[in-house]
């Protein structure tokens, strides 16, 4: 049965202010259509008992229970996580763009981060969060547990986009701080120098990190649908503005965009970075599906 969250677009979900509710709606909605996964095994945390069957390891028998009941039971523990993920969320000014009817890229990105965190927490993975613009704003180290999720969701809820995008410098400073190798989920519009960005990402790759790059774009940025005279004002630089008749250079803009995208995708492919482009009117479930498909593909 389809979960109600699957039918909700990001615009609809925007109305739900509690991030946790959103994350749960999305994640659970996403999994409701899938088979339940028996991610169970060794763990430090006990989960349940089951009857011994032939072939089970003898060492996993619960001898205390055998003593009480004289039956062979095997102890099952919560599976111990082996994934350490860090979500890098771009909070630069350009992420604050959103068309009149939709959500801003930042809004979409923070909800996406929340969903991913929730999902990973559910899977007992440890998740960290880094928010940044020209510099790192907040660094939340990787941990697991419900309390940690709360901390992360609060941070995501309170974050406000501002400042210019400076991915390469930020990433370079982050490399030594994330010592244990793991998964880096970068959520950004990547509106910076592609060459510098790829160079910085290459540093992460050198540190053996897996990288998934979610590039968040608004449909306006892809299609440039403006018609009448427009004054474009920069979201990052206060003194930048251009008065233009957009129709006249739509063609040139789209050419530039295509070139930019091609450079970015080529760079990612070269360094085996997963690049996922998301448009702010796409459901979050699609983003999660993209993420999991790639995770399984790598596994």
């Amino acid at each position: 049965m389809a979960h109600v969250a699957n039918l909700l677009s990001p615009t609809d979900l925007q109305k739900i202010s509690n991030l946790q509710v959103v994350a749960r709606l999305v994640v659970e909605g996403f999994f409701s259509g899938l088979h339940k996964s028996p991610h169970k095994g060794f763990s430090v945390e006990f989960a349940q008992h089951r009857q011994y069957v032939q072939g089970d390891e003898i060492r996993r028998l619960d001898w205390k229970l055998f003593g009480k009941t004289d039956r062979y039971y095997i102890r099952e523990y919560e599976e111990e996580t082996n994934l350490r993920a860090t979500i890098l969320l771009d909070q630069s000014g350009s992420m604050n763009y959103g068309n009149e009817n939709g959500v801003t890229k930042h809004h979409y990105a923070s909800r996406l981060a929340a969903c991913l965190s929730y999902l990973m927490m559910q899977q007992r993975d440890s998740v960290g969060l880094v928010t940044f613009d020209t510099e790192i704003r907040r660094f939340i180290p990787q941990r697991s547990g419900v309390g940690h999720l709360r901390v992360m969701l609060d941070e995501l809820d309170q974050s406000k986009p501002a400042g210019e995008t400076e991915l390469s410098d930020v990433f370079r400073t982050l490399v030594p701080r994330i010592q244990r190798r793991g998964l880096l989920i970068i959520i950004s519009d990547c509106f910076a120098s592609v060459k510098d960005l790829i160079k910085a990402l290459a540093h992460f790759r050198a540190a053996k990190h897996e990288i998934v790059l979610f590039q968040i774009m608004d449909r306006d940025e892809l299609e440039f649908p403006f018609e009448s005279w427009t004054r474009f004002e920069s979201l990052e630089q206060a003194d930048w503005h251009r008065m233009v008749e957009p129709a006249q250079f739509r063609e040139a803009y789209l050419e530039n965009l295509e070139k930019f995208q091609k450079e970015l995708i080529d760079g990612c492919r070269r360094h085996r970075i997963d690049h996922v482009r998301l448009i702010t009117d796409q459901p979050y479930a699609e983003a999660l599906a993209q993420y999991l498909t790639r995770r399984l593909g790598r596994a």
Partner: protein
Amino acid sequence: MTFLNFALLGGVAAASIPLIIHLLHRSRFRVVKWGATHLMDVALIKNSRRIRIEQLLLLLLRCLIPAILAFCMARPVLSQLAALAGSSKTSMVLLLDNSYSMESGGKDTGNFVQARTTASEIITSLGRGSDVEVILMAGENPDLESVPNFDLSRLGKAVSELDAGYGRADVAGSFEKAAAMLGKMQNTYRQIVVVGDFQKISWSDEEAPNRARAAELLKAMPLPPQVTFVHQGVEGHDNVSVESLDFSRLIVGVRQPIQVRANLRNFGERTYSELRVYFRVDGTEKGASQINLGPGERQQVLFTHAFETAGSHVIEIVADADTLKADNSFQAAIPVWDTVPVLLFNGAPSVEPLKGETDFLEIALQPFGKSKSDLTDLITTKVIDNENGLKIEDLPKYRTVVLANVRQLSDRWVKALKEFVNNGGGLLIFPGDRIDTTWYNRVLANDNGMLPLPLASLNTPATAKKTTKIISQNYSHPAMEMFNDPRNGNLSDGEISSWFKLAERKEEQTVNVLARFETGEPFLVEKKLGEGRIILSAIPCDVDWSNLPVRSFYLPLTQRLVVYLASTIFPPRNFEVGKPAAVFLEKSAIGKKAMMVDPAGQKHDVPVIDKGTRGLAEFRGTQRPGQYLLTAPDGKVTHFVASTSREESDLLQLTAAERVKVAEPFEAKVITSFKEFQELDRSRRFGSELWRPLMWLVLAMLFSELLLQQWVVRRRR
């Protein structure tokens, strides 16, 4: 530039509409907070220049379209020639009819006043840098020649001060002159304007081939001119003209009566009853007559006068009938001589009366003296029998020398006679039974060229077997033309038994045959030698070979011949306009200056040039009809009269339809006023108006705008 709908010119302001729309659009912009600035900047830098040019072009086109449309609707017409650079300058030849018919309606209020005003307006209306030549169709005026052809205001003023009074307008000749002038003029837009009364006589059908030839000449020019006929003035219906004067004498002597016959004609439709005709001598009225002259009628009026003093006199016949004064009078200059001295060389003298060779001739030349009458003879004769009878130095005192049956002359005499003729004297040679034909043919004919024709043989009754007579014919020679009137005697009355056959040569061009015998052989032949003339008769002047001396015509014939030969010493005093006025003066006057006063009262210096034994004063500026007065350095006065043909007196003009017809060969437009000329000139120069090419321009711009717009849109996609 002028506009026919000036108010609509305000529509040019519509040019601002696209600009306003553009500015309004810009002012109602939306603001977008944008992230992908780096993508936009690159696009802007790359395209802004091209876009700006495209936009400017479009804006310009959109602004111009309504502006030019409004301009079109205002119907612009370029009236100031200077407004269109390169084509504003005109080279114009203006043909102005200044014949005396233009004075119809009065000298100060008539047709010519109207014509010269229009001509002046046309000239001064031309644009700066134009040049104009004025051709006066009936006669040039030196006043105009001194004005530069590019100084239009001065030229216009000079034209407005002209007067008419000249002879017949030469239409075809004027056009040919105009073509030659246009070829030398500097501007590419060329015009010929004819201003006149389009009188029938000047624009007659007989002249049509000449006009057609002139029209072809104009069309064949590299830059053919536009031709305009400007008809001016109204047709006159009352006009009496004194057409001509006839005199009874070639030379008039003191106290010799001269008959002056004036021929009058009424060209109008009105009857002139009791029209008074006056006869004036040197400005003083000497007689008057009264006649009745019906419409279209001709009449003669006769006046007789005897001059009291020798010298130059002017007679005038005046019929004061109508406002066109030019043809109401006719003048003539008459030289009055005291006497004409004639030397008669008698080759066969006789003591018996009327037996001598020159006896009849002497009586015929001075009839009054011989008859003891109170009347005086003009001619005085001196008879000599041989060369000793006269000192050869005295020969120039005579006007005519007659050789009658002179056997031969000494070389000294031949030489003196030749010089005498060369200087304007007359020589009349009569042969006879005594002459040495061999000497005549050798010395006079061959050696000195003094014999018009050689004497070939003698026709006697024995050889000819019958007598002959002088042929009665229509004589054109001035010495003979009086015999065209039978009242002066019939030359064929005489009978000739013997005569010299003169060796006529066809190639001889300088010899003029005055009269012939019935046999076809020449009777009187003339030859010009230097300034003088020689006449040779085929028969003697006595009754030996003919009965001419006893016929009534003998007296006028011999007098005419002698006076004619004597008068060649004077160049004509009455001539057609344009012919030179000349007078021989004393040798002492050579190098000095005589003074000529023309009919307009202007004085001209005339240098006296060397002409052998005499000086000659010659004046060629006789374009204006009327009386010319030449005062020699010694104060002696000579009158000349330049007269015009009286064809102009017929004031009938071409009808409007006829004017259009004569305009056809020239592809000319016929108009009647300066205002019409301005309109015509405007329409010729610029087409009817400017709106048509402008409308094409608007259409072209609309298409351009559409194409440019589509091209821009296609690039955006």
